[in-house]
């Protein structure tokens, strides 16, 4: 008998699509129930979104002023309390889930399975190690709560719309620490599609050469309606902000189309795009390792090719 608690991720009063991906992983266990837990200052709109996700049995909300921002030290004791009676606790393996869930696991005194790629049984999972260069099968102890983060790139989001799960408020009796305070979130507001969930992504690397030159990447991405990503080298050189980094230590993404432009294809970068549908590489060096994994490769100067592409698109 499995009962799974999925921790909802949200920002600015909106549910993040990573939550529906974690629900997909939960559904793969064929549990008796999947409940989604929303911790927020004002949970109503988020809970209403979560209630629409297929497969969700109930949405539980803990609405407190302290939950306005996702501080792990504040959320973890509430989640640990709320997890009583559940066989599994899942969260997406985004920076939100990675931050809070190990803290929950430690409070429960159990191990955590990080980055679940596939479910082989209620307690058996596959996950990547060594930047995805090996995939291990891990078995969690049958007698303990399974705490796991879900590698979002491996799971399609569960469909929404048909469901109308009941929403219930939950009160947990825990004193919350005051030793950690949120100050601010600096986010590069953009009208472009979100890198993590976009179906098309255009990424630039060190080959783009400068912050000014990166305009050519943005322009092309806008032309085809794609999100913009980057290699670590491009981020380190200050061409783009850090939240655009794709790879082992950046975002792991699975768009239908990924275009790597002026990116050499270091193993740490490739880790982030292994599950992309079609990978296109544009690089002036025909020997660049990116061509070993690209579905379509084009050798040439990006500053010449991108305008040509735009023209060919009309």
């Amino acid at each position: 008998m499995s009962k799974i608690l999925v921790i909802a991720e949200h920002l600015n009063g909106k549910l993040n699509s990573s939550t529906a991906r974690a629900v997909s992983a939960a559904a793969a266990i064929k549990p008796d129930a999947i409940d989604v837990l929303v911790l927020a200052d004002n949970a109503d709109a988020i809970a209403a979104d979560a209630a629409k996700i297929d497969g969700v049995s109930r949405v539980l909300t803990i609405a407190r002023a302290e939950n306005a921002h996702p501080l792990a030290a504040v959320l973890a004791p509430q989640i640990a309390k709320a997890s009583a009676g559940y066989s599994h606790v899942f969260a997406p393996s985004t920076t939100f889930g990675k931050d809070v869930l190990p803290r929950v696991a430690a409070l429960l005194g159990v191990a955590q399975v990080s980055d679940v790629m596939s479910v082989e049984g209620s307690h058996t999972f596959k996950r990547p190690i060594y930047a995805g260069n090996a995939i291990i099968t891990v078995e969690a102890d049958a007698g303990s709560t399974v705490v796991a983060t879900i590698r979002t790139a491996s799971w399609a989001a569960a469909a929404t719309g048909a469901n109308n799960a009941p929403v219930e408020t939950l009160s947990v009796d825990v004193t919350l620490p005051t030793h950690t305070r949120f100050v601010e979130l600096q986010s590069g507001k953009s009208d472009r599609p979100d890198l993590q969930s976009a179906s098309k992504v255009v990424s630039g690397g060190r080959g783009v050469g400068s912050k000014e030159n990166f305009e050519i990447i943005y322009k092309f991405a806008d032309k085809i309606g794609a999100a913009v990503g980057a290699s670590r080298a491009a981020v380190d050189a200050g061409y783009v902000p850090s939240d655009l980094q794709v790879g082992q230590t950046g975002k792991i993404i699975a768009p239908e189309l990924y275009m790597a432009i002026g990116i050499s294809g270091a193993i740490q970068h490739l880790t982030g795009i292994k599950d992309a549908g079609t990978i296109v590489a544009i690089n002036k060096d025909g020997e660049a390792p990116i061509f070993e994994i690209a579905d379509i490769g084009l050798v040439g100067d990006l500053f010449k090719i991108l305008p040509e592409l735009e023209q060919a698109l009309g």
Partner: protein
Amino acid sequence: MKILVGYKRVVDYNVRIQVKPDGTGVVTDGVKLSANPFDDIALEEALRLREKGVAEEVVVVGIGPADLTAHLRNGLAMGANRAIHVVTTDAVQPLTAARVFQKLIEKEQPGLVILGKQAIDDDANQTGQMLAALWDRPQATFASKVEIADGKVTVTREVDAGLEVIEAELPAVITTDLRLNEPRFIKLPDIMKAKSKPIDSIEFGSLGVEANDHLKTTHYAAPAKRSKGVMVKDAAELVAALKQKGLL
């Protein structure tokens, strides 16, 4: 203030990992081992805090087999005052590593613990968060900027939505992201000097830590390979190929 730094040895990030044909593990015999890159960054940050006068002592901690001492010497050569070596030949899962750090904290009473956000072998990304929970202290993961003043630390964190700034009371646990700093290189005279710096060896068994082996790895496999693609000769061909796949 004293700073404890996690200093884990891992397979060097340049090594192309091979899975053993029988699926029992990855080939580690004879491959180059180095400090976890995130731990070099953790140590560098601790050294800078000492150089600024915020901290007096920097202690590197390694958990692992007897030959880990050579690796810990590198941490000493980089500038740590001393090292603690918790000796075990067993695999150490993150919860166990966190419990070990918790024991060392009881003894050392550090004002700050800095770990890597993840070790690049198991990529677990757990130990710091678990330690903060067991210690019941603040955590600031994925740090790209750290400022300490008035018993508080202000940390800029690299999160999916951008850069988040949080403020925490000390003592606290910080885990490092790549852009926090660029670690210094070790110079030859430093290696000589490091020889006389102390390394405390502590048997894992003597700490009274419950080893957590809740997770059993039953099989290792190589990742699915992507099939070899095609080369196109110009922009027009590329657009045609993408249109054919329905991607444009």
